[in-house]
């Protein structure tokens, strides 16, 4: 009797497996049609915001959240937008902890049928990881900080053209700015480059290294991992006559730790040069360090209001997310002009974005790959003794 029951259950299990396989050949269409599902717009439209709200990169993630929400607040406050309100749903991608969170956030955005477009994610590796989820859902996503050059070339890290856009210049532009500053302004001859083994960091490090070596600068390359906190052995390897260390990392607390340990090893004379991921005043505060950061227009009234509201702290890392929100909101509104919209429509509207002015200091239009058209450059900042970042170039 028992054997019969067991056999019956085994058969039932196999039947379940089979029905899974058979049943789903009918339904794959379901998944890819998500992008063309018609959504009634109504008075409130929904967009998603994917950023590292908690975790080691929270310092920069929250800047992005604040800038993006700042834009949405200004949009919602305008009388003309009374029937076109925007609701923002945030997703915490915990950059620096686990790329899987970015995928999870992407999937939860995808399953929200009212969500039409996404601002984010922040990290280049998160873009790579969540691409298939966004593509499968038909969602367009505009990042205000993912700068790895190969994200838009259509083949190296996958093809996301038509889905992924960014409102920041890529590392192809950042590396020359950094290298130029090092060679022309600071006249460094002996440079150490340390990357943090992430997609973003390695791209930048490779770019700067190439230019520096071509100009005859002695470059030594090393790497650490984002989980490291004991750098004493790495620091011991750095010769004391090094003039500068380039650290294109994503986690500002790690840079602060590194700087402190560098000083503690008696090599505090060596200057640090960071990248846009380290733009976190109050967290990275090694005075005298340099940092390259996103472009912006300091005379724009929106920028000035933000700085005043945040007690002089511009939080410029998050600034491009304001523009990203602007792009997404504009596209959603355009697609919803007839009361109904699909995610595919929103994507097309994003691709056709044409902002005559923006707080970045130049007009915003996208090319086919998802990059911005304007020739944007990065700025160079220096950390003052009171911890604030001052623009010097």
């Amino acid at each position, binding site marked *: 009797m*028992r054997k019969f*029951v*067991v056999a019956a*259950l*085994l058969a*039932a*299990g*196999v*039947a*379940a*497996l*089979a*029905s*899974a*396989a*058979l*049943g*789903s*050949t009918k*339904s*794959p269409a*379901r*998944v890819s049609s998500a992008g063309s599902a018609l959504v009634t717009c109504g008075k409130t439209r929904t967009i998603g915001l994917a950023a590292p709200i908690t975790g080691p990169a929270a310092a920069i993630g929250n800047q992005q959240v604040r800038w993006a929400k700042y834009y949405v607040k200004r949009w919602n406050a305008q009388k003309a937008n009374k029937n076109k309100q925007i609701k923002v749903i945030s*997703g*915490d991608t915990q950059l620096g*902890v*686990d*790329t*899987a969170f970015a*995928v*999870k*956030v992407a*999937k*939860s955005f995808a*399953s*929200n049928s009212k969500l039409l477009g996404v601002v984010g994610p922040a990290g280049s*590796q998160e873009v*790579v*990881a969540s*691409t*298939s*989820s966004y593509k499968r859902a038909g969602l367009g996503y505009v990042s205000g900080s993912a700068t790895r050059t190969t994200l838009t070339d259509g083949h*190296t890290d*996958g093809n996301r053209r038509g889905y992924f856009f960014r409102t920041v210049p890529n590392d192809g532009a950042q590396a020359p700015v950094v290298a130029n500053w090092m060679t022309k302004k600071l006249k460094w001859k002996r440079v150490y480059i340390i990357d943090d*083994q*992430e*997609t973003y960091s390695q791209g930048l490090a490779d770019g700067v290294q190439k230019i520096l070596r071509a100009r005859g600068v002695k470059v030594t390359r090393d790497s650490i*991992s*984002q*989980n490291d906190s004991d750098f004493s052995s790495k620091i011991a390897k750095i010769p004391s006559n090094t003039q500068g260390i380039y650290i294109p990392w994503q986690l500002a607390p790690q840079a602060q730790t590194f700087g402190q340990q560098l000083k503690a090893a008696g090599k505090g004379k060596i200057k640090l040069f960071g990248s846009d991921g380290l733009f976190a005043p109050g967290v990275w505060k090694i005075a005298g360090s340099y940092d390259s950061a996103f472009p912006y227009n300091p005379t724009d009234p929106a920028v000035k209001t933000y700085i005043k509201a945040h007690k002089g702290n511009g939080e410029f890392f998050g600034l491009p997310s304001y523009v990203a929100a602007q792009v997404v909101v504009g596209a959603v509104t355009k697609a919803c002009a007839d009361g109904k919209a699909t995610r595919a429509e929103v994507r097309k509207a994003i691709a056709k974005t044409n902002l005559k002015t923006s707080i970045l200091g130049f007009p915003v239009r996208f090319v086919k790959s998802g990059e911005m058209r304007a020739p944007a450059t990065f700025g160079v900042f220096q950390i003052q003794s009171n911890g604030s970042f001052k623009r010097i170039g």
Partner: protein
Amino acid sequence: MSESTPGIPGSGGQIGIDTWVEQADERIERRGGLAGRITRIWERIPAAGKLALLTPAILVPFLPLVSEGNLFNYGIFILIYALLALGLNVVVGFAGLLDLGYVAFFGFGAYTYAFLSGTHGNKGHTYTHHWDAQWSILMAVLICAVLGLFLGSSSRRLLGDYLAIVTLFFGQAFVVFTNAADPYGITNGSNGLANVAPLTFFGGHFTISSTRGYYWFLLGCVMVVMVILYCISESRTGRAWKASREDPLAAELMGMPVNRLKIMAFSIGAAIAGLAGSVFAAAQTGAFPQNFGTQVLILIYAVVILGGTGSLTGMLVGAIVIIASNQVLDSTSPPNVARVLFYVALIAAVYFTMRRSWVKMLIAFAGTAVFGLVVHAIVDAVWSRGTAGHVTSGGFLTGVIRHWVLLPTNPGRLAVYGYLLMIVCVVAVVQLKGWWRLIVLVPTLYLTAFVWENLLVQNPAVTRYVLFGALLIAVMTIRPQGLFGTAKVEIG
């Protein structure tokens, strides 16, 4: 011939029948009352019958009432963890070996499947394999079984605690390996493998790419694995495992090949984890190293311990309870459900603590309500900022909460001190007895609600891990056999 000689146990009865064995049932400690009767009836049903009863219980709530997103979140994760728990049960429950690196097998399975069914490129190398799912899953299972063999063979010379440490290191080694040590771009460092194809069987004739499809597939896997494990546990091997779990030395002396049994347990557990890993990678279309970290391990352990080591149905029930609460307390879920669950749990906790006396229970509930209202009124009068905060997405309970719980505008430090104070109070409640317990219970309950509203509900994703950690401790100290396991008695 039923002569019984007084003073000699078991002397009554017939020849050929061992009265000691016959009377075994009377010697097993049973619970009284309604719970006892239900337990006895439950125990009489053969395991296959239990399985048949439970499967509709899983099916009915899920399809088709549930949305796609929820099906993914709840259904698929529950089934994956049920699979993992079944595998860990073989190692911990059947064979009694503490394996703290189990999650590495899960990871290896996922990575093997991901590598063999997708396109990956890093550090200048590009790998494009698009094996059919039946081969890549098979490969994943085989590789994991071999790894389990390898780990098991290292357990030959190690006793309990040392084995735990070696397995823990094995788990760590996996994370380090995927994160860092891949010179040929096979594992793609901490970015993981992202371009994973969904399950395609037999050259694309059957493809499972929808959530519903994965759910059915996983359900089938769980049922098949449960049946296989049931058969194994009733066989000679299963009995040998149980013997070697209780006393390895005695088992060896009775002629069981304890070392071989250990290796077999590791291997089978690893194979099941490999299966779970490959389906997981397909469902998530990706495999990332931190998917296989300590948190997952603790979750699997919580499922196994709560369900009861050694019991197959326990695994399923444990998975449902733990994973459902895990997903409910996720950062992307609305806090409403979590809030309702919290208050229900609080009421249940009071019930269990004060079960023996209805009077005390009523006093506890009424007292807390009154205490809360009084404190709220006093604080409102004295320090208005203490109650001016807002309730985090309250839903239908907002009104009640706003007038009952203290909600400072800037909880910050207060919430932290409140948390620490709450732990002290809970400790005190556990220590005290009688009326003192009741007296301390009332402010403790109020404090718990305060901490929940101001700290825990805002960070549900972390709260659930705190709860699971506490759950492990509580289950171990109060009821080590979990819900469905059998209580063990240590002799000597």
